[in-house]
């Protein structure tokens, strides 16, 4: 009963937080997928030093906590005169880290394609771009989509870290409400449920995406 009363009084104030979380998650995951693909294409281009640079970048961002880059961009960049809004700073940090992960996921998808297929493509007279579009991409999508969906879910949950830099998303909402009412359990249970809902929506989207790209040959195990 106490919980319901609390929910009735303060529940509606979660609306804007939910909106911000969804918005940040959307732009950051689109950005991360684009950036990850760019990194992959750079890597596939095959120049040795470029390869090394991308490898170094991926290692750097995979092996440091994303909160560090969030702080660095938000509190550090103003020192060199770059004052972007918190939403941009935090989202950028998420894009940079998740882009690194996603490029690796996609690379795994490309690696899973049998080398023979490239020879076959060449013998059919397909150009480099043609090989990528007609042979590589359709297969990579099928191989990589489950892990890609997973990564986006991780990204959605990482948006909670943006509360540390004054972004009014869901977790910040919960923090403000606990500070106001002292009802820590209620505030965070509601947030947990809302994150769960967001992720369930995403999972459903990922599943239907997988169904859309899954064509001949049939992968019954997926």
């Amino acid at each position, binding site marked *: 009963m106490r919980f319901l009363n609390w929910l009735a009084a303060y529940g509606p104030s979660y609306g804007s937080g939910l909106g911000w979380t969804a918005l940040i998650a959307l732009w950051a995951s689109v950005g991360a997928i684009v950036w990850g693909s760019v990194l992959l294409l750079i890597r596939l281009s095959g120049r040795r030093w470029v390869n090394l640079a991308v490898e170094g970048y991926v290692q750097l961002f995979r092996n440091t906590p994303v909160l560090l880059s969030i702080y660095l961009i938000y509190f550090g960049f*103003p020192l060199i005169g770059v004052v972007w809004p918190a939403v941009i700073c935090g989202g950028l940090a998420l894009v940079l880290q998740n882009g690194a992960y996603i490029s690796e996921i996609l690379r795994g998808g490309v690696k899973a394609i049998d080398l023979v297929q490239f020879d076959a493509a060449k013998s059919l007279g397909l150009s480099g771009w043609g090989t990528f579009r007609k042979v590589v991409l359709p297969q990579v999508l099928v191989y990589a989509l489950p892990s890609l969906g997973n990564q986006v879910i991780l990204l959605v949950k990482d948006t909670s870290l943006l509360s540390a830099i*004054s972004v*009014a998303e869901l977790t910040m909402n919960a923090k*403000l409400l606990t500070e*106001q*009412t*002292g009802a820590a359990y209620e*505030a965070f249970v509601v947030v947990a449920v809302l994150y769960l809902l967001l992720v369930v929506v995403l999972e459903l989207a990922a599943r239907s995406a997988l169904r859309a790209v899954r064509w001949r040959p049939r992968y019954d195990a997926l």
Partner: protein
Amino acid sequence: MVRRGIARALLLVAVAAFLHLTATAALTQEKSRLDTVLQRGKLIVATFSTAPPFCYTDDKGQLVGFDIDVARLLGKALFKDPNKVEFVVVTAEGRWPAIESGRADMGIATTTIYPDRAVRVAFTRPYVDSGVSVLVKKGSGIKSLADLNQEKYAIANLNNPQQADRSKRFIPRTKTLTFDTPAAQALAVRSGRAQGAQLDTPVADWYAATSKDEFEVIPELMGYSQNNAIFLKHGDFTWWHWLDTAVGEMRSGSYYGDYSEIYQKWFGKNPPPQKFYLR
């Protein structure tokens, strides 16, 4: 079939555990936390580690501050030994579950009394009150609240409702940024994210004193009284009463001497007189 059997057994265990919990909860309500503390022989206190000069970690890694010393004074009152106090370091939103779950006996963490909060947690009478000041960068040209009250400026607030209320009242045009800790607020001013930080006057003074060439405090106050109190779980009259009495004794009774010493040590001035009619 076997799986269903296991599931049923698990459900049964869960129900039994729940009943057990509620039963013990009902039993423990009879006993006051005061008895538990006395039997245990030490006091467990939830506090912060990032809010100088109230409760923070010093250069040597020790938890120190005004709140810490007040907790030790309570330890002295209970056990004749200021060291019989154990501190549980919590975050701003972690202090409420820390006392509701019983992890700590009570909390002292620069916590301001607020009506919405009092619905969920009990407060003693305030053990300290202070003004609220604004910390700004030295040489920023901001000398008053009127200077700060402009759309192009931002104020770094703590994520509590009192600060949000005061921002709206005193500097409605200034943009607000919200952080978890005073340390992050100071960082926001240092990095130029915000032009001012709203802090309890002793906290603002502490930052201005420790980083003299970087910060200054504008003389105007954003509030004259900010009552900080010990907080504890509702529903334990004996325990609340003991703590409230102890605070009363600090501010105007037999612990006034010890309290004045602590006050002097951290704020460099005497506390308010024991009685308003005394000098």
